[in-house]
């Protein structure tokens, strides 16, 4: 049930754009995006709750295609501060409740 992220790594120059994809073999009810810098805790970026929903702040945005069971994170005009590992999280829903399951991550390196 773990979501699959692609690509595994992205190397960018400042100002370039990137797209990180997250897909699931199970139906998606929501998608969470987090960024983790080396040695730090994952930090919440955004959550998409409805199929077709798009969200964003600053130059980071995301879309959620419920039918395709996938979400994409868009980083526009990247800055050095965008470097880190990006994780998407999906909900594992069972009779026991709802747990948040993460993908293996996409490492983004932005250089000047």
């Amino acid at each position, binding site marked *: 049930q773990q979501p699959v992220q692609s690509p595994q790594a992205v190397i960018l120059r400042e100002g370039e754009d990137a797209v990180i994809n997250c897909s699931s073999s199970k139906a998606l009810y929501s998608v969470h995006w987090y960024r983790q810098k080396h040695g730090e805790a994952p930090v919440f970026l955004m959550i998409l709750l409805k199929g077709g929903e798009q969200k964003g702040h600053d130059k980071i945005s995301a879309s959620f295609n419920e039918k395709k069971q996938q979400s994409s994170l868009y980083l526009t005009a990247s800055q050095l501060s965008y470097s880190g590992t990006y994780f998407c999280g999906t909900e594992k829903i069972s009779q026991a409740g709802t747990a*948040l399951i993460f*993908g293996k991550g996409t490492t983004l390196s932005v250089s000047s």
Partner: protein
Amino acid sequence: GAGVSQSPRYKVAKRGQDVALRCDPISGHVSLFWYQQALGQGPEFLTYFQNEAQLDKSGLPSDRFFAERPEGSVSTLKIQRTQQEDSAVYLCASSLDQGRAFFGQGTRLTVV
């Protein structure tokens, strides 16, 4: 407190030793999650509490791992007879509902 607090930040244990890792979630947060994060990997789900009830423990790798949250607030992850493969960062996260999860800084466990 203002955020999720985990202690200790670092723990070195001799193989075979028992360890206890503490998580103090944000006050009022109903959901609490434990994750294991190996170097360069995404957070792997271990277990999930809703208040004091452990709803999902399917991610616990063996019966040496045990988690509790007796009063629905502070949680403890206990690992008995630690093995080298238990070396990882253990992350705790809490959330008010199935929304945004707030992560602690993690406990880095090294088994020697």
